[in-house]
């Protein structure tokens, strides 16, 4: 037995340190690609335990990879260099709402959806809504800076964090930010840590900003014969003084996939669908709904649905939720990207995606949060088909290039992790990437904090094939 494992086993209770092969394999994956076997899994439940693990790992120079519930789509919790997986999912959930300050203080293992359930009791809302919110932990959301459909109006995770408590790679507890909205004392380390994918430390507590829960909602669905028209309808709506909480897009392939999977009454001959949600005061959204309907009509929507009842609205959003499972029926392996472009470039990006689809002869389906330019091009393929996977690798590279060329980014909300690391320089330039690397090196002198992520190794390429 390695000396550091022995040390772990003697300091923690037996059921907190997992070293059996079956257990190690059970923490070797996430929702993305590949499996990497850790040497040990430590299930931490207190701040002191995290400090202990980090101090020890730093002494032995053992890699540590923090993990929530492993729903990540970019490989954040994969222990690519072995060592320790630090499981925070079993940390007792603690949500302390301070309604007068419009904040909540939470422990890292709290499920994101349960924060909302708790703050709703006070008429408040925590807006970020990744679709995995009922499974994922807030710790994971913070590390990855998760988004969600409501990002259009409310922004993403980082916009709702005002303070953090963090264990550094050297095992020190630091506090960043605080409990106030305004705070300009020193560097904004809070924002630096959010989205750093566990490469700068382990988040052990967060102070979240809340907003009043909107009293009413209204859904609309608009049907288009041309993708380009739907793109223009988005721009027109957003420049008319209306900010919907969600504007979701589905292309023809995703509409048809849903109808084949669980018929929901979507128009299968449509080229594109927009699903819109307005929230706010009931009188205000009534007026806004009329205006949005008018805009959609003017821009050539061939049909507009404005459900009067909640169930009918829920049915529309249910259909949107079915896209992921529905397209999984096409082929077993899903390569889910989240390249994001400025809103005005959505139509252009759609055209480029169409060309890439033809060039590489791949099953490419596009849906996503069109209102904020965050598309989800999904490539459906089969891991076991080597030829196909090579084509997919090339196509992914071109999708990234297309997004960057249009002034966009590699990743809107999923993160870089292992898969997108080879493309970082393309977007940031070598000097930009180098500055990031220097920050990382000074925070983590021994390179033990989630190594192998975000920063490409020399000559690293995207590989989706089975070794």
């Amino acid at each position, binding site marked *: 037995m390695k000396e550091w494992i022995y040390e772990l086993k003697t300091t923690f209770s037996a059921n907190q340190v997992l070293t059996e092969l*079956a257990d190690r394999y059970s923490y070797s994956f996430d929702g993305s690609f590949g499996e990497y076997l850790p040497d040990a899994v430590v299930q931490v439940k207190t701040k002191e335990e995290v400090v202990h693990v980090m101090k020890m790992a730093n002494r032995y120079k053992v890699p540590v990879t923090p993990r929530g519930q492993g729903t990540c789509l970019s490989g954040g919790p994969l222990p690519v260099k072995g060592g320790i997986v630090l499981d925070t999912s079993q940390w007792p959930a603690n949500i302390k709402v301070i309604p007068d300050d419009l904040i909540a203080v939470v422990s890292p293992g709290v499920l994101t959806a349960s924060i909302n359930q708790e703050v709703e009791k006070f008429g408040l809302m925590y807006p970020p809504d990744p679709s995995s919110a009922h499974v994922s932990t807030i710790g994971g959301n913070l590390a990855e800076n998760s988004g969600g459909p409501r990002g259009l109006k409310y922004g993403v995770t980082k916009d709702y964090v005002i303070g953090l408590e963090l264990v550094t790679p050297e095992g020190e507890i630091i506090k960043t930010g605080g409990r106030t909205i305004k705070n300009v004392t020193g560097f904004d380390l809070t924002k630096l840590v959010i989205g750093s994918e566990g490469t700068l430390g382990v988040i052990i507590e967060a102070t979240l900003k809340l907003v009043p829960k909107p009293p009413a909602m209204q859904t609309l669905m608009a049907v288009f014969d041309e993708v380009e028209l739907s793109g223009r309808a988005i721009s027109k709506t957003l420049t008319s003084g209306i900010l919907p909480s969600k504007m979701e897009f589905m292309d023809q392939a995703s509409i048809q996939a849903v109808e084949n999977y669980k018929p929901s009454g979507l128009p299968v001959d449509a080229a594109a669908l927009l699903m819109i949600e307005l929230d706010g005061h009931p009188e205000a959204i009534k007026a806004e709904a009329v205006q949005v309907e008018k805009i959609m009509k003017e821009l050539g929507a061939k049909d507009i649905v404005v459900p009067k009842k909640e169930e009918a609205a829920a049915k529309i959003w249910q259909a949107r939720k079915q896209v992921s499972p529905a397209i*999984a029926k096409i082929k077993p392996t899903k390569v889910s990207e989240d390249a994001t472009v400025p809103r005005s470039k959505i139509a252009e990006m759609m055209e480029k995606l169409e060309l890439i689809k033809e060039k590489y002869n791949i099953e490419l389906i596009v849906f996503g949060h069109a209102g904020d330019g965050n598309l989800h091009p999904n490539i459906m393929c089969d891991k076991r088909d080597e030829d196909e996977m090579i084509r997919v690798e090339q196509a992914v590279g071109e999708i990234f290039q297309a997004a960057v060329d249009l002034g966009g980014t590699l990743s809107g909300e999923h993160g870089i992790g292992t898969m997108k690391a080879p493309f970082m320089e393309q977007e940031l330039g070598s000097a930009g990437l180098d500055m990031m690397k220097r920050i990382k090196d000074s925070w983590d002198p021994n390179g033990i904090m989630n190594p192998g992520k975000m920063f490409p190794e020399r000559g690293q390429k995207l590989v989706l094939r089975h070794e």
Partner: protein
Amino acid sequence: MNDLKALQEKLQYDKTFDCVQCGYCLPACPTYETMEKETHSPRGRINLVKMAAEGKASLEDLEEPIEKCLGCMACTTVCPTNVQYGAILEGVKETLEDNKEKTKRSEKTEEFLFRSFFPSSRWMNRLGNATWLYQATGLQKVARSLRLTAMSPLHLGEFEKVIPSQPSPFVRKKRMQRVEPEGTPAAKIAFFTGCVMDSVFFEINQQTIELMKRSGAEVILPEHQTCCGALHAHSGKVGLSKELAMENIKAFEDENIDYIVNNAGGCGARLIEYNHLFEEGTEWHRRAKAFTEKVKDISEVLVKLDGLKFSAPVEKLVTYQPSCHMTNVQRVTKPPRQLIEQVPGVKLREMNNPDFCCGSAGVYNIVNYDDSMEILNKKMEAVNKTNPEVIVTTNPGCLLQMKLGVEREGKSGEVQALHLVELLMEAFPRPKSSIGKGSVCDLGIGK
């Protein structure tokens, strides 16, 4: 290499690729909740099967995680990509079973249990009779006071306390094989009696028959029916399970039957999937399909017949513990609740997370006693919050487990655990058609 190919086929390796590891199954899995690690989650188990099929882990590594799975199938209900977890689980159980080296003795015991005991109505009746003898002669009291039963390693003592009183062998023997309603039958029903239901819960079976009769149906009990084979399949004995399925398909092959009705969620789940046991396009697949199309839970058929009028109120607060296999395999969730609400006086109060397994899971509570009790504790927490007078279930395993839960909480005086059928009978149901016509013959059962 060829060995690995064969292993992959046996382990349903291809089916593991349907899992995209999104983790949506985690919050639904009772063992992930109580055992607190991925190894005991659906996603973790599927990944381990994959690792074993790729030769990266051994079959021994799989044993514990697979053995600890309840098979409640709650993961399949929430899975966004429709992973066939049931098929994967059965595949790996069969593989492990074939791989296991067994001592002669345990092999003999198992051979007896699965080949003769469960499938044999003679043995099951004897169990019922022995239980009756045991209770009627006062042996039970003696055994309890001597703590004999508490010493048994299988914790059978715990279960023994909650087994209901048994009817005498005479009552068992005189049961009719055909029961006709007053007037023209609204449907012809073949009743699947089940092994545990027909022995330990014989009385509930009688009440079930009575309810169908009063709903206007003609009920027959096909003579050559046997065990549904669920317990066999869950223990990796797929071949045996298939033999039993074929016997049942034959026994119920009568074109005049409208429904094949059962009152045990676990059996129903097996019966309704008989067609999965045979290759599509074969004669047996066709026969199995004809069988499964008629399979209904008692609650479904009572709602459908809509022939009962309850004549006495039951002023009780009820909570409903659905059988996992009713919810996740048969997908029958509304009819039992509809029936509970039809009973005058009853107030139904749903518990938090009712779809969370109670930990009974076939013979899981006997084989994995401690793990099962952890799960039961969680369940009882939710049950207690509703402060019920009655816990209603629809499966013998759940019923025993809920009785055990009540007993462990020291509430046997205040809280009853009942099968849905028992609750319905408490409200003196009468045939709608004969209301006002005077007395109803009730064969002397279901007081």
